[in-house]
């Protein structure tokens, strides 16, 4: 399983671990774990709108923080449930850069089984680290 929710951190919030062999895949899994809190049947999300996203940060950890917050931003500002398609993370001028294609559609409670709104990514127990099998992230979402 590429991500797993945890009940042992911060009772009022939603915590998950995500892991993947590559950083690109880790970002995709963490994004899916975040969106899955808000829409339980992600397979019902149609990919009718797409957004090209480029972000730069000093390290992988803060880059994931910004990336997940960007998804939350689009949900609030444009009612969009977006999932990552192509993701590419590479060294940038001052740190690391992500170029990602996000696609999805407006939330439709008639078709989407909505869950709990995610407000923000927190720093509680937050971390991105290299592990023997690749990469792992621990994220607590404020809901």
């Amino acid at each position, binding site marked *: 399983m590429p991500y797993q929710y945890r009940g042992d951190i911060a*009772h009022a919030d939603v915590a998950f671990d995500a892991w993947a062999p590559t950083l690109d895949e880790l970002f995709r899994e963490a994004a899916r774990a975040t969106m899955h809190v808000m829409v*339980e049947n992600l397979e019902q999300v149609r990919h009718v709108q797409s957004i090209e996203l480029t972000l730069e940060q000093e390290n992988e950890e803060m880059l994931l923080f910004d990336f997940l*917050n960007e998804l939350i*931003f689009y949900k609030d*500002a444009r009612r969009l449930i977006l999932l990552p398609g192509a993701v590419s993370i590479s060294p940038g001028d001052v740190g690391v850069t992500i170029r990602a294609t996000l696609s999805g559609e407006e939330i439709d409670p008639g078709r989407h089984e*909505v869950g709990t709104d995610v407000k923000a990514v927190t*720093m509680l127990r937050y971390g991105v680290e290299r592990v023997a099998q690749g990469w792992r992230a621990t994220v607590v979402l*404020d809901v």
Partner: protein
Amino acid sequence: MNVPAALKRISDTIWELPVSYKEGMLVPARIVASEKLVKEMDAGVFEQVSNVATLPGIQRYAYCMPDGHWGYGFPIGGVAAMDPRSGVISPGGIGFDINCGMRLVLTSLTAEQVQPKLHQLVDRLFARIPTGVGCHGFIKMKGDDFRSVVQQGSRWCLKNGFANQQDLEMTEEGGCFPGADATHISDKAVERGYNQLGTLGSGNHYCEIQVVQPQNIMDPELAGSFGLTTVPNQVVIMFHCGSRGFGHQVATDYLKLFLSVMERKYGIKIVDRELACAPFHSPEGQAYFSAMKCAVNMAFANRQVILHRIREVFSDVFHASPDDLGLRMVYDVAHNTAKLEKHLVNGSSKELLVHRKGSTRAFGPGLPGLPECYQKTGQPVIIGGSMETGSYLLAGMATGADAWYTTAHGSGRTMSRHEAKKKFRGDKLQREMEQRGIYVRTDSFGGLAEEAGAAYKNIDEVVEATELAGLSKRVARLVPIGNIKG
């Protein structure tokens, strides 16, 4: 049991971790709770409240209220007052949902009058108050209009026909924290917020129809002063929501800013980066304080617009004006704020920056800032329980001074959302609640399961602890009969 061996019992409801408990603690950490509640607290509370005690400028004690549980930075239920000259301001001490708070609204209707129309009322409230993930409000505006909203709060609502003068008088600071300056908020925050005015959100946010049963009135005199008991089985409305995506973006923006300057520019080392902070009088600290006030005002305006919708729904269903139905606010209480207040420290009045994270200001009688009608009673305090178990109206007490006149804000969770979702099924819970006389509508059965009553502490024990500790006095218990949830 997670209770640290160093925790000392000060009284039946006050527990203390001394400064020797953790390196860097500047003051002791105090937990307000009965023995049963303190034993049930999760380990994160003790870790986090003692971390709060290390923050520069903290005065007297770091506090956690009896509904306290593991939060972000501060525990939820956390309270800390900083000397503004030497102390810091911390987004983790305020929370992401800035000025998440509660309102209690009276009606002159009885349960007997409401019951035949309960389904119609709840269905209409559910249709008219946007709830759930990604919900947008019904007031069309542009970014510049929204900047006026966040600078004016409830005053904007009054000017635009969503409020009356009495609503503003019954809201902390008249529904507008002065000093909110929209130049300190990002375009991103505006874009996240301007279409969310008048929306409830999700999670533990709700709008509930409740009944004041005569046997649940603990203090008839105070209840009368707050407008209860005019009719038996009086129906009231309680709702809980905050500043929505706008407040969350403000918190995220400044959390990142503080992380980048805290140590490099100001040499502040903290034990936990969730407590990212800046000196209150630094340019960054002042910018956040002003931006936070914008989010506070957004939340006041949000609750005010929702109140307007509630009035419309009741008016439609009962074919009478809101005035004829007695739809009048008791009070609006804020949960997640930082505010400059004057308190007594070593016998002298001193201005302090009081952080309240998941806790409620509970001014005792005679304190400045209360409406004239509550000068003798103390501030009405609203403590929301789970949607299954009831809520409370209380009053602030003169004996609350040590805790900066602060009390609990809700039941407090004992079970994680993840665990609750595994344990309960939302559709089944909805049916069981209806059999017990509570009609609930929701966008999300998953979200409903997370809010099951069994996931929360016993509200009766929480409020009893606040009363025994001298923080707030029970006035009445309020029983739910209808609820809309995000």
